[in-house]
């Protein structure tokens, strides 16, 4: 019964938005239902002259460029090859997500989180960054890692806790990290990475680096105190940091209407004296341009910038969640099929003759084969050695911990069959 009651709000909005008679050229994001779209890339430092912060966009739902001047600017730094790389990454990510999601359903991996529906905000932003920018992510940014070069094997070693997992099998699946790609290892607590990014952005400024720290988080995480302290610290202390909020409409089951009363996340930036913009998060060009310009502003003026990317969580929160209890099938189907950022970019690339079905099938098939083959190998792969149980708590293992480990070793030796999962 409870879950039915909770359904009321999304149902109402679904009816309102998802009527087939209304042919939309722009999406209506649940995080800012009344926001209009704009062709002007404005980082607001004062409340705009309209009731709701507008959404910056470049491409419509049909993959058609409707903001030529911004598009031209984007293409000055985004060549065809990069654009194709972005798209390929998006479909590789989607393919990997589908297989690993199903692998969890089959009991082959303990947990998984898909990135469905948010591919454009992840990959559009990743494409606008440099290799030396520092990433502080939440947990739904696998596309950022993938775009920067995290391989399918690296993803799967983490998810299956193999001995090759950089995190030594200590964290749940999807808690990736990479030193070479400058992606700080993911942690589960929400929003903790936000003030850390402010500190990193401050360190970057002190080091005279022309880089930024970019911090990803959701609109739910932005309710945590960490978010507010992070923005205030970054503004006051002039950190070179981009705060990128993925407003995907839901924090597990909680819709944005239960999350905040104000105008989304973008409006909060102004209160802290931070230049802020709202963009269409399913429009990779808009995300790319906003991040590129935010980067420029941050590195040149030594200031933080806030970007609220409007998007929609196309999957369950995680494999432990069943979104059908609080979202209708209609709503989900509508977003997955009609509002899908991958379809938008595909239509664009097809029109531009940069992509065709043959390419599509080849990338999807190759990825599928690779992930499936990896699935078999990582399942059999050696797990992290038991000795790693006590390393890295400190730089050196304390005496007390050495003693505790000896007991564990003795037990494992005496009852090997009981601890066979222990490796």
């Amino acid at each position: 019964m409870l879950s039915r009651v909770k359904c009321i709000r999304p149902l109402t909005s679904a009816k309102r938005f998802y009527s087939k008679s209304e042919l939309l050229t722009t999406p209506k994001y649940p995080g800012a239902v009344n926001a209009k779209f704009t062709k002007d890339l404005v980082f607001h430092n004062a409340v705009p002259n309209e009731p709701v912060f507008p959404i910056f966009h470049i491409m419509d739902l049909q993959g058609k460029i409707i903001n030529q001047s911004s598009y031209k600017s984007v293409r000055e730094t985004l060549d065809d090859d990069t654009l194709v790389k972005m798209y390929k990454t998006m479909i590789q990510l989607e393919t990997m997500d589908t297989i690993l999601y199903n692998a969890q359903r089959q009991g082959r991996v303990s947990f998984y989180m898909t990135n469905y529906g948010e591919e454009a905000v992840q990959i559009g932003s990743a494409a606008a960054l440099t290799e030396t920018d520092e990433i502080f992510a939440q947990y739904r940014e696998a596309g950022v890692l993938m775009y920067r070069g995290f391989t399918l094997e690296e993803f799967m070693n983490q998810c299956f806790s193999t001995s090759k997992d950089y995190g030594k099998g200590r964290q749940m699946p999807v808690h990736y990290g990479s030193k070479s790609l400058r992606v700080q290892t993911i942690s589960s607590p929400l929003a903790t990475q936000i003030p850390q990014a402010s500190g990193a952005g401050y360190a970057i400024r002190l080091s005279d680096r022309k880089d930024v720290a970019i911090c990803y988080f959701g609109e739910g995480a932005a309710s945590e105190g960490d978010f507010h302290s992070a923005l205030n610290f970054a503004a006051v202390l002039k950190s070179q940091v981009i705060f990128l909020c993925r407003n995907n409409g839901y924090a597990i089951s909680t819709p944005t209407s239960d999350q905040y009363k104000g105008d989304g996340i973008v409006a909060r930036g102004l209160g802290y004296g931070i230049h802020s913009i709202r963009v269409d998060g399913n429009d990779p060009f808009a995300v790319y341009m906003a991040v590129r310009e935010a980067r420029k502003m941050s590195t040149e003026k030594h200031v933080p910038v806030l970007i609220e990317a409007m998007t929609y969580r196309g999957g369950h929160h995680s494999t432990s969640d069943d979104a059908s209890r609080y979202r209708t099938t209609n709503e989900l189907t509508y977003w997955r099929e009609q509002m899908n950022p991958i379809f938008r970019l595909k239509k664009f690339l097809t029109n531009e003759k940069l992509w065709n079905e043959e390419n599509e099938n080849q990338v999807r098939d190759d990825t599928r084969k690779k992930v499936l083959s990896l699935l078999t190998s990582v399942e059999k792969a050696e797990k992290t050695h038991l000795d790693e149980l006590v390393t890295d708590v400190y730089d050196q293992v304390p005496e007390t911990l050495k003693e505790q480990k000896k007991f564990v070793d003795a037990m494992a030796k005496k009852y090997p069959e009981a601890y066979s999962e222990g490796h």
Partner: protein
Amino acid sequence: MLNLVRPGRNVLSHLGRRLYSSQSAVSFDRTELDSDKIDFKKYLNFNHEIVYNYTKEEIDVENVPTHKTNMCGAINEAMRHAMEKDEKAVVFGEDVAFGGVFRCTIDLMEKFGKDRCFNTPLCEQGIAGFAIGMAAMGYKPIAEFQFADYIYPAFDQIVNEAAKYRYRSGNLFNVGGLTMRAPCSAVGHGGHYHSQSPEAFFAHVPGIKVVVARNPVQAKGLLLSCIEDDNPVLFLEPKKLYRLSASTVPDDAYYLPLSKAEIIKKGTHVTVIGWASQMYVLEEAVKMAEEVGIDCELIDLRTILPWDVETVINSVSKTGRCVIAHEAPHTNGFGAELAATIQEKCFLNLEAPVIRVCGLDTPFPLVHEKYYVPDNLKCFEMIKKVVNY
């Protein structure tokens, strides 16, 4: 007079003692005190000496240039040395730019500039998170919480983030450069929110170190080690000691070992363990005990986590008796961990139960502070009782 029984060292004498005890031992009901009273008034303006003792192998104040300074000055010097040595050492917190409410950061902004010594907004959660981010970039943030009583908004950042940063990344990343300072403990008029000793909360967190200092020489050497240490460290500073009498401190930087307790007075009858400002109280209690013929071994634990099990158990194995005292509330204070480990490791050498003399299980009270704290008389009475058991 006291019925002073020498502690046994072997199983046989131990068993004999236990049989005897079972018939006539003093119960450990703390309300049953003996009738002997001590003239405590001579300890009202007691001239402390033991707390200023130092281990010559650790520190040299005789053959190097020295000066006199109080704990506040010593802490300031430590930060100055660290900032001179490494330009990535940065000091920040609430009100630190003008020198801090306790004046520990005085002159650092003038000397090192506004980028390296700066005020933050009033937000402990932000201070901790910001510091972690800087440390992740290879900096050495020295973050100040204005009072340890106000550290709890930062608890999540310290417990879930700083402490786990290295482990969760498989050593890809760490925040080893992070040092957090916080004034702690009773000051005589601090009430609930300017008196707390929160070390036990953080002692339950693998991945951070917790260090406390008892005097200026210790404070400078320990804080410098905390800053140098490649792990996140919480350095607690008993605020009551900031302006206590000055002592001789080497001019240059020096480093005292972490995770190493210090025996500041050798003794044979009973091991007395404490840390921070409680060491001053314990010195008085130990002197009182001396008056009635009890020879205490006094240990400053110095590092609460990871703690020096060896020094403690060696001492208790020798004396067979142990009193632990801390200002933090009794239940689940760090004394509980010490007591549990001691009974596990020294069981056959123990002549009496290990006793804790602690703050009460109440919020820290203002008007009844004198009754709340484990003062010299309470510690003295319990030392007597442990020896008389």
